[in-house]
């Protein structure tokens, strides 16, 4: 998109840092507000969902991608177009289930977690759980079936 090509590398990096730092401030605040990690995960998912249902419109407006023919195409669009557009990374799509209704997105380099280290007392925290909510919200708006993203830490 022409709007993005005008920016210098530096300002692109800085915008990513603004998002990353803001996300970190959000998670920190949620950890203060809620006693346990499970509740924080739930809040992140809920907030992600609210973002996702709006983000999908922004995505469709920018990308002019048509309707996906099947779930495999959906997976490719998520990984190669959406993630690239918003986070600048291209996760790999792997681990398809035999029925073709489950796959894994592997993020080698998660921009949400830049500069982040989790202290030991938050082992149950799924730091990037916002992403699950975003995907759930976005896909729910364009699919007739329900999608349940599950985030596995490694």
């Amino acid at each position: 998109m022409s709007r993005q090509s005008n920016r210098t590398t530096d300002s692109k990096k800085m915008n990513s840092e603004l998002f990353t730092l803001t996300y970190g401030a959000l998670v920190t605040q949620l950890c203060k507000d809620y006693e346990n990690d499970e509740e924080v995960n739930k809040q992140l998912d809920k907030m992600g969902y609210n973002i996702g249902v709006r983000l999908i419109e922004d995505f469709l407006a920018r990308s002019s991608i048509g309707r996906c023919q099947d779930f495999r195409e959906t997976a490719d669009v998520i990984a190669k177009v959406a993630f690239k557009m918003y986070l600048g990374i291209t996760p790999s799509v792997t681990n398809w289930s035999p029925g073709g209704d489950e796959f894994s997105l592997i993020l080698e380099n998660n921009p949400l977690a830049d500069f982040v280290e989790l202290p030991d007392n938050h082992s149950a925290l799924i730091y990037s759980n916002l992403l699950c909510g975003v995907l759930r919200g976005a896909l729910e708006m364009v699919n007739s079936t329900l999608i349940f993203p599950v985030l596995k830490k490694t």
Partner: protein
Amino acid sequence: MTGCPRVNIECHRTSRSRLVEYGRFDRMADESLFEFLHMEIVSHIFNEQQSSKGEMDNKERAACISLLEAMGFRVGQGLIERLTRDTPSFKDELDIMKFICKDFWTKVFRRQVDNLRTNHQGTYVLQDNKFSLLTQFSGGKQYLDQAPKYLAFSCGVVRGALSNLGLESVVTAEVSIMPSCKFQVVIQKL
């Protein structure tokens, strides 16, 4: 639930060399992604307070605004550190404010401040006629009273940036015509 499509997301920690390699490619955390996150944060913080009673009173509203401002403060501190890694030190307070108006504003809000005024006694007014976090609002008076909610975080960002540059300040913002916005910075003399 069986029969529903599932997406598993796995995040891997990478070694340092991998990170350097990825650094060569452009990162595009698209502006709208931040704007959506910011909107949702504001919404979340205000909803959390609202759930207890019907209408919010001024004390609760002030608490939410403070919270947003505090979040912005930490972000501002982090951003200015990254931005000024290689810049030489500043001559004086005005030099710092000009940097904030040009380089910092460009990096964070994607344009420069349109107008900087000062009384040369520690008070500065930064005017941004097309403030990036207000452009999504419809013009006119309808949502003017909502604007402070959406400016609190940014005030904190500015205050945090100044703090790490050695200036303690009080930063407030006011809107009279969307999306034009005035930030008032009052440097605190210690």
